[in-house]
Each structure stands twice: as C-alpha cells, then as structure tokens.
C-alpha cells in the first residue's frame, strides 16, 4: 500500500509496523468541521484488541492463556444470531457508516483535528460506487444466522410471498395443529412445480398461520442452491443445502425442517405424471428422523403440480447451462421470460398426523437399510393418500 491512500478510509495506510506504538490520543472533531469537540474514548492498541462489538461482550484476554468458560456451553457454541438490541437500527448501512467513520478517525486523526476538509484521493466514479453500494446494502442486516438466513432480506421478500400466498395461489391449509409449537420436527412433502414455490408456501403458511409462528428451514437441492442469484436468495430467506450433516445440525437445534425427498425428480415431473409421487430418494429423511428423534409430519401440497404444466423437457441442451433440464410448457420458452409466470391455481396444503418412528424403532433403526426403506415407503403411501383425498374434493384446478 506504501502510504498511498486510495479510498481515504483505507485501514492499511498506517500500522504496517507491528511494534508501532499506539497513536497519541487526539481529540477528534467531526469530519464536517463541527464546532463542538466530541469526546472520544481513545484506547491503547493492546486494549483495543480485546474490545469487540456489542453483540458479543467477550471475556478479557488474560496474559496466560487459561481458557475462560464464560459463555454458556452449547453443543455448537454461541451463534451471532441474537435479537438486535432495542432502539438500534440493525442494518448493514449503519454498521458500515460507523465503521467508515471510525476508520477515518483512526487513520486521519491529525487532519480531522485541524478541521481542514479531508483531502483524499478518490477512485474514479467513486460517487457512483457509493450510491450503488448503499442501494445494495439497503435491505441487508449486518448479521446472518449460522446457515445464512438474513432477517432483513427475509422481511423484504415477505410481502411477495404474502401476495402469492393470499392473492395468487389462495392457499388453504389444513392440520396446522399437527406441527408442534416447539421442538424439532421434519415436514416431509411432495415436490413439484419446476421452480420451488411449494417450499416457499409451506414456509409462509407455518410462519403466518401457525399459532407459534415458527420458522421452517427448507432443505434445497444442490442445483437450486448453486444456481446464481436464486441459490443465494434462497439461502438468505432460510433455505439450507440439502445434506445429512446440515439437516442433523438443524434438528439438533430443535428447528423445524422441511424436506422434499422426491428431489429433482419431483420438481421435474411432467404434467401427465402429476400427483404421482416419485421414489423417495434413499430414505435419508427416515434415517434423520430415527437418528435425531424427530417426528415426521407428512404433508401434501395440491395445486403446485399444475403451475407449470410441463409437456416435455430438454436435457441435452441443459448441460451447457448447468441445469438438469430445460422445461417446455405451453408458455415457456415460447413467451420468453413471461412464460415463467406460474398458472394461478388454487392451492391446498394439508399437514398430516406426526409419525414417531424413533419411539417405535429407536435410533439404531437408522442402520437397518431394509427398515429405512420400508418406513420411507410408508411415509410415501401416507402422503399419496392425503394427496388423493384432497384431489377427490377438488372440483377445479383454478378455483378449488
């Protein structure tokens, strides 16, 4: 960096030398030349290294490294996903603003004390960049939970989900009482619809209509999860990559997990195959339920299988786009992007009675492959029955 300040708030302009003495305490005036000198707490470097943000008041480091056990012992350690302190706007913009200011104060103490306007070298088009950055950060919070859910992004997407839920798909739910108010549970559902709207709707249904307003963590297939933008968005609103380790960790934390064992086969069902459940993976969800002692809540989603009536799918061209297939529906790809608008079908989501496999077979049952497959088949049959019952009642695809 060689002392050249490019951004002005470059933290590395000084402090190259590791044994450098702490900067002399200087009273810092505001950068805009405020008349009132603001009292600033100046701490020597050694202490500053111990100070942290308010989210995690740490134990003071002692000179000898006896590890101090001050935090509550939890299996996975403390997470930074804590409720924000009251009265503080918990956004990335504020955090960044503050950081920029403190870095400026640290790097340019002498200049700020002079009260002269800052002379700093600017990047070309810095104004544009700053505006863009502020726009990009507007809806982001400065923390995410350990699986990447950002509460601000989730809140931002909420109105869209609400519109889809209430107005567009007019979702009706049944049996929400089967979902426990607290503690772990595994929602197992049929999967369909080319794009994973059903996961979003289950999430929204439980959040809005369940008495405990619980957050559902849907497990997302790899191909969606690593799809540019879509995967990141799914992750920020609560989706987690579908794998055994992630699911186990979520269930151990007593969360509500939604899994779609049909996976990619389910989401890519043709219109003529609608409401015919595909093979349920390799029964990984049963192993999970047995191992983690989580009840399985069989769930049937009716309506999602018609939103993109897929006539056929093209696989040979899809490889080069990094997706498993290109759907061909009456509207897509003939209408281009407009063809991706889903059909406004009437949806029903039914949650069935929980199945307690662990109580019956114990955690060791997870190693019995034949038992696992048998139980997976049992769950599949249960969901198929629920689907058939709902379909029998339904008179119209669009109006229910």
């Amino acid at each position: 960096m060689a002392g050249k300040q490019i951004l002005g708030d470059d933290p590395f302009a000084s402090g190259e030398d590791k044994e450098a003495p702490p900067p002399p305490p200087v009273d810092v005036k505001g950068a805009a030349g405020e008349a009132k000198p603001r009292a600033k707490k100046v701490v020597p470097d050694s202490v500053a290294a111990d100070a942290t943000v308010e989210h995690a008041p740490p134990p003071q480091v002692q000179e000898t490294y006896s590890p101090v056990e001050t935090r509550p012992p939890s299996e996975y350690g403390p997470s930074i996903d804590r409720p924000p302190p009251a009265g503080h706007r918990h956004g990335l913009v504020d955090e960044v603003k503050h950081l920029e200011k403190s870095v400026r104060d640290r790097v340019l103490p002498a200049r700020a004390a002079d009260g002269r306007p800052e002379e700093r070298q600017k990047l070309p088009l810095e104004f544009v960049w700053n505006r863009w950055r502020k726009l990009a950060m507007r809806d982001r919070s400065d923390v995410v939970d350990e699986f990447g859910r950002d509460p601000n992004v989730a809140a931002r997407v909420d109105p869209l989900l609400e519109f889809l839920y209430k107005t567009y798909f007019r979702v009706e739910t049944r049996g929400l009482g089967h979902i426990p108010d607290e503690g772990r549970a595994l929602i197992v559902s049929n999967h369909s619809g080319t794009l994973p709207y059903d996961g979003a709707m289950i999430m929204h249904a439980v959040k809005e209509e369940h008495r405990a307003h619980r957050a559902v963590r849907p497990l997302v297939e790899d191909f969606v999860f690593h799809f540019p933008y879509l995967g990141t968005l799914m992750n920020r609103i609560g989706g987690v990559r579908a794998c055994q380790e992630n699911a186990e960790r979520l269930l151990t934390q007593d969360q509500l997990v939604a899994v779609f064992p049909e996976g990619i086969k389910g989401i890519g069902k043709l219109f003529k195959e609608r409401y015919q459940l595909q093979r349920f993976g390799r029964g990984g969800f049963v192993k999970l339920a047995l191992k983690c002692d989580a009840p399985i809540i069989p769930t049937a989603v009716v309506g999602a299988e018609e939103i993109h009536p897929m006539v056929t799918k093209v696989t040979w061209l899809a490889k080069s786009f990094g997706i498993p297939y290109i759907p061909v529906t009456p509207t897509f790809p003939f209408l281009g992007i407009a063809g991706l608008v889903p059909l406004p079908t009437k949806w029903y989501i039914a949650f069935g009675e929980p199945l307690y496999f662990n109580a019956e077979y114990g955690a060791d049952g997870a190693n019995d492959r034949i038992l696992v497959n048998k139980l997976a088949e049992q769950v599949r049959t249960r969901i198929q029955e629920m689907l058939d019952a709902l379909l029998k009642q339904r008179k119209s695809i669009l109006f229910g």
Partner: protein
Amino acid sequence: MPADRKRAPKKKALVSRPPYDPEQRVVAVTGAFSFIGAELIKRLERDRRYYKVLAIDIRKPTFPMSKTQFHKIDLTLPTADADLAAIWKREGVDTVVHAAFLSTPTHANAWAHELESIGTMHVLNACAETQVRKLVVWSQTVVYGAHPLNPNFLSEEHDLRGGVSRSRFVKDKVEVEKQVRRFSDEHADTLVTTLRTAATLGPHIRNFATRFFARPLAPTLMGYDPLMQLVHERDVVDAFALAVDNDFPGEFNIVGDGVLPYSTILAMMGKVSVPMPHFVAYSLSRALWATQVFDSPPNFLDFLRFLCVADGAKAKRVMGFTPVHDIKATIHDFLGVGAPMTEQGAAQHATGGV
C-alpha cells in the same frame, strides 16, 4: 481410529533422553520467524514451566529472547532431518511445534513443495528418531476445499477435498496432513495434534487473507455470495498455546464464532467489489496467474463461490478453546477499530441493558 494403529517395533528405542518433566519442558518451534511461531515463542518465554525453547528457522526472530535458542536450519536441505534430530536429542526436546508453512501462495512451486511437503517429512523423520512426546502441526481449513457438496459446517472427519484442486498451495497442505496422519498411525507414543485454522485476520499477521483484504478492490462472482468464516490471530495463538500446554491428540478446527456473507464482509471493510461472471473470472484469473501478475491461483475463486466453513465444536468441547473474537470483532480489529458500533450501542453496552 483405525484398528491397526500399532507402533512398529523400533530399532532405536533406547535413545538417551531426559525423562519428561512437566515443569521443565523443552519445546522446539519450526517456522519461528512466522507470526504463529514468533507469538507462540513469546508466550512460552513468559511461562515458567518451559525450561527452554528452540527456535528453528532460516531467519532469526527479532524479538528479545532469554531462554530461546535460535538454530538456523533450512528444512528444504536433504540433511535437515539429521540436523534436527541431533539438536533435539542433545537438548531433550519433548514437544515439537511444526509451523514452517507458507501462508501465501507462491509461484515458486518447486520450492514451496520442498518446504511444505519435504520439510514436513524431515520434521517427522526427526520426530520419529528422537521419539518426541508431542507434535503440534499447523494446517488450514483450506484443505477441506471449497466444494459445492460441502455441508455448511465441515467437521474434522470430513474428506480433505482441497487436494483435487490444481493449486499447489492447497495440495501441499493436504499432502502434509496425509503424512502427519500416517506418522501418528505408526508412532502411537507420539501425541499428534493438528490445528486447522480458518482464514486468519488481525492487526499484525500477514497472510493471503490479509493481503486479499488489504486491496481496495475485491472480485465477486456474480450471483454467488458464500458464507465465510474468520478467526482472529490472537485466538489462533491461544489455540496453539493450549495445544502445547495440554494433550489433545487429533485434528481440530480453529475457527471464530459466526459467519457472514462475503459481500457483507467486503462492505464492512469498505472494499469496491468488482462483479464478474464466474466463467470470465476463472479464465481471467488463470491468465493473470500464469503471467505471474496475480498472486492467488485461479481455483482460489472457488472460495468466493462455494462454502468452506469449518465447525469449531470439537475444539470447544475437547480443548476448551473458546475464541474471544467473533467474526465481527475480528473484522473491527483488523480495521483497527475495536470499538462498539454506535454511540447508542455503546451506551447500551455500558449499562448492560438490552
């Protein structure tokens, strides 16, 4: 633990070695000039239970040393193992800390391989020869590799997929881990601890992470925003000191609490992000690496695309290692502002109210 973990009968079992005295320990540190080596030696200097520290490097550390002996040994030389063994036997070393690794990728592939892989072989040979009681090896979580199939939290038992990458930097580290694992299987009476540190930031340390975040610009891959994990330099030294102090055989992830998306980290550091489609970025990076303009190999872009976050639960449970700095504290300290966020927040912090 494999069942066949039995020590092969050794011919030189009767080495004259002073018995291990927990109050008079002798520790050898390779890579003494590096940040981890130097900071660890400084701590051992202060601790009365350590009788002597052997600092091994090709450059003499700059801090004042009272009970530390400096030995200039180049681990890339073919006779390094014999030299090390002779010195360790003479001084009665009971613990070896092997931290002589590169913290930044280099274009000098052959030399890097000699230092990391062959250097480790020499250290392990010397350890076998002198039958040291304990060996602590530094590794990094990059050995897991940023892979699309990684779970959100990688445990210590997870495959080391970093080896499939074409990066010499990561490949050598995976090779080192394999050698160390084989050594610990063959020598049951040497206690082997491997500490895998996440990307380490701090006001003093210099490595590829600090270099990356010291630039005003940072590349981002369009549509990808993986979660990242950092650990503070001080916590890393804490972990090493813990591992030297007590006996914790096995591998441990040394990571800080919390994760943040890459873009959030960049925003907090005040970087200008340069978004690129990933296929453009990969070929650009490959070209820049091949022409030696860039100092990070092309497959380092995987870390900007996929998850590589390790689970520190085992270190907490077994070692009792609790990182003092969470990810935000690490970033704040790296920026040189270890202060609370806002005045409002500071007031709340002071009153302890929520």
